[in-house]
């Protein structure tokens, strides 16, 4: 390598490092509060602080981030009842709620729970067996066996009216761009990339294999009266169907061969990191609590990158114009998205980036943005040790992938074009 080239590589590397460092450290005001504790840590606290209720809690079935705390769900194998608890981040009281199927006599609350629910009663609870249910009489009150217990739990605040309309519009727009991209790839075919085809198929397969452990991310599918394995089966089947459809679509509408320069990819990754830090998504924080966080994040970035590349292809075809005008239009869309896209910010930035570089590098650019976005969200939201380690590992893997792409491109010219079918 000539000295001038070495200097240029070093300068480029330094610029990239600066860019990445800035994206990771520039102060931002994130939309969601960071989680200091992992969901498993919160579950341990919930099990410690919520009264046992005299019922079997069963296994921890799922969790989700709600406001400044974790909502956790426990359900026994028979599914007759479930316990939800909201564990706040600070030292506030844990809130809990018991939901029971209305038909089983076995759902009578424990004596301890009956006492806890009517603490002012002068006499101890007296058991009353009735047909179809078992009650407690506490003082002058009667606690029905099938009655839900506990108090209301906080829910994620819905978006205000203008923002909600904006989100619906963004989703509709993205759906339309996906259809436009699919039509564009059929009507204006290019050279499909075998590497991306295989990559997307492998990502779908990896996510499918991980589905049995991903049920924890959908606590709302668990219902009283429905056995947890059935709820997990319903969730898993739906996800597998969607993954199958995506894998199939990736074969029908494959990514094109070609890749942008490593510098562009690094810039895209840095943009993704910033987007993730500005508008983090709670679902990704929930994923960071699962043991499969790292492989699932990598596979999801590849799959979502292909999807965003497809939408970017659609956008690129719709704004076919001279280069200057094209960049102005895409810039306006990018700025608008930053203001209005909310949780879709990362995906919208990926679509715009994919449209900006043209068909050849669209998927790589979108993947870089979404990879960076995952790093940004995990770093910003998941403040527990394991979450931060996952963010660092994901960043390191991204750097390794970027370095590999750079070296491969230097050796062969255009890696994706080499692998084109």
């Amino acid at each position, binding site marked *: 390598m000539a000295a001038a080239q070495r200097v240029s590589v070093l300068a480029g590397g330094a610029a990239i490092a600066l860019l990445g460092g800035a994206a990771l450290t520039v102060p931002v005001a994130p939309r969601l509060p960071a989680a200091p504790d992992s969901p498993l840590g919160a579950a341990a606290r919930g099990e410690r602080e919520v009264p046992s209720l005299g019922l079997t809690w069963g296994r921890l079935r799922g969790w989700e981030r709600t406001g400044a705390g974790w909502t956790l769900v426990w359900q026994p194998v028979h599914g007759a009842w479930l316990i939800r608890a909201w564990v706040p981040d600070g030292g506030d009281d844990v809130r809990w709620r018991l939901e029971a199927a209305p038909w089983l006599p076995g759902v009578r609350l424990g004596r301890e729970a009956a006492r806890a629910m009517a603490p002012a009663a002068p006499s101890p609870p007296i058991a009353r067996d009735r047909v*179809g249910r078992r009650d407690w009489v506490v003082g002058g009150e009667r606690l029905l066996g099938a009655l839900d217990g506990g108090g209301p739990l906080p829910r994620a605040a819905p978006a205000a009216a203008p923002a909600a309309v904006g989100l619906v519009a963004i989703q509709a727009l993205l759906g339309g761009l996906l259809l436009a991209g699919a039509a564009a790839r*059929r009507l204006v075919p290019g050279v499909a990339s075998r590497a991306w085809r295989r990559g997307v198929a492998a990502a779908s397969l990896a996510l499918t294999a991980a589905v049995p452990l991903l049920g924890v991310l959908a606590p709302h599918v668990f219902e009283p*009266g429905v*056995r947890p394995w*059935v*709820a997990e*089966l319903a969730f898993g089947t*739906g996800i597998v*169907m969607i993954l199958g459809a995506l894998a*199939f679509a990736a074969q029908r509408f494959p990514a094109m061969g070609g890749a942008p320069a490593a510098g562009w990819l690094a810039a895209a990754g840095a943009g993704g990191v910033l987007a993730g830090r500005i508008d983090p998504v709670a679902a990704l924080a929930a994923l960071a609590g699962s043991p499969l966080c790292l492989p699932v994040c990598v596979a999801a970035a590849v799959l979502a990158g292909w999807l965003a590349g497809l939408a970017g292809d659609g956008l690129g075809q719709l704004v076919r114009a001279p280069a200057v005008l094209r960049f102005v239009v895409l810039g306006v869309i990018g700025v608008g998205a930053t203001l209005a896209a909310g949780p879709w910010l990362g995906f919208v930035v990926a679509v715009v980036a994919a449209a900006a570089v043209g068909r050849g590098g669209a998927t790589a650019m979108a993947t870089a943005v979404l990879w960076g976005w995952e790093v940004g969200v995990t770093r910003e939201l998941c403040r527990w040790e394991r979450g931060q380690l996952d963010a660092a590992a994901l960043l390191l893997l991204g750097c390794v992938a970027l370095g590999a792409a750079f070296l491969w491109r230097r050796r062969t010219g255009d890696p994706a074009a080499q692998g084109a079918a």
Partner: protein
Amino acid sequence: MSRRSYLIQILLALVLLAAALALVRGHGVGGESDAVAGARNALHRIGYEALGGTPQASFETDQEMAWALERARPGPSGVALARGEGGAVRWRVAMPGGGEALVTTGGVVWSARRPVPSAPGRDLFPSQARAEVEAALGVAVGDPQRWTLARVASWREAGHIWQRGWFVGGNGPLPPGWRRELELEMVGSSVVAWRRSVLPLGTDLGVVTGRIAELQLLRRPAMVGLAILVVGVLVAGAEATTYRETIRPARGVAYGLATAGVGVLAGEAALGAATLGVAVAAVIALMPTWTELPPERWRWGAAGGVLLAAVAIGGRLAILGAGGWTPVTPPAAGSLGPGRLLADSWYPALAEEPLLRGALPALAAPVVGWLGAAMLAAPVGALLHPLPAVPLLASLGLEALLQLGLALVAHRAGVGGAVIARGVCESLVRRGAFPLGADWDAAAIAGVVLGSVMLLWPPRSE
């Protein structure tokens, strides 16, 4: 076609008709005429003579209760309970001049209500009421000695004193843990109404309602699958239009309208039926562009349907025989004519088969081959309509078996053949949920008759 082949087809048509008749004859809910007589008798016992004219009888089922009883007492005794002392399957008989009674299909009078008499007799004061109400129980049940009066309430209305008594009858012939109750109403000293009810054991009812809730949850991924399929059809439609491929929009529109119409007749919400109508219209219009689909041989569809119906009925018997449980009293719609049986049976055939056996295999065939794609449709179809069984996997497995059977029918007879097979199968299996009668039998075997005519129709090439 040789004469020998044609003779074989004639024989096959006869066998089909005979098999279909064997599957439907005598299967159905009876007791309508007995119910009318029982209702007259019950009203007579409370001092009301129904006027002449034909009473209007409509059919009702309390699905969860029937299934809970069948689960609590597996086998014929559970079915008999659901249709008798359990009061879950019954006729509502409305007399032309007023008065109404509920009579179970097993002949147990479940309730009776007469018009308020103009001269109801002397008013009973609360001190006398208890004994009089207790004595009146004999007009309602055959075993009054097993019932206990739990409570009496009195009130004054329209110039008379009214009494209402609540009786508790233990479990009687019902399974342990169940309880019978009866409410009896008097005005003055005349009984004007009484009604029985059953309180189930929580566990028995709970297992059934739990399974129903689970199946409703499992339908969601199937709906996701159908939605994905509709998106695929949309993209394929755009592609076909752009490349100016041969499509059949008129045929699609006609099929879509027919599907939506049958859906509305089957009691579906108009919006849902219309949405599915649009989706299948697109599928049918695009069908000529999907050259991977097997050729249409509609004549074999009915044969497949009869075979699948036999498998479905046999499968349920096998689950019961193996110690599991599956409902014997199937879901039924009430107070409707044979047209409802036709609509209920043919709507899923018209709406789902083009999607599951047409669009899905056509879209996925380039990647996984036609048979592989047809296999993909089986889990989607299996999650759409299974009955609540114990174990649940037995029901899902049986439904998946039927879906695989339909895939094989589609392989042999095309999408049209699969539609006919599904319609025939559903008609024969659902027949048992509706009242006995030749018109109901005719509706159930209409598809088989149509299939037999197709089988005997000479091929166009001859």
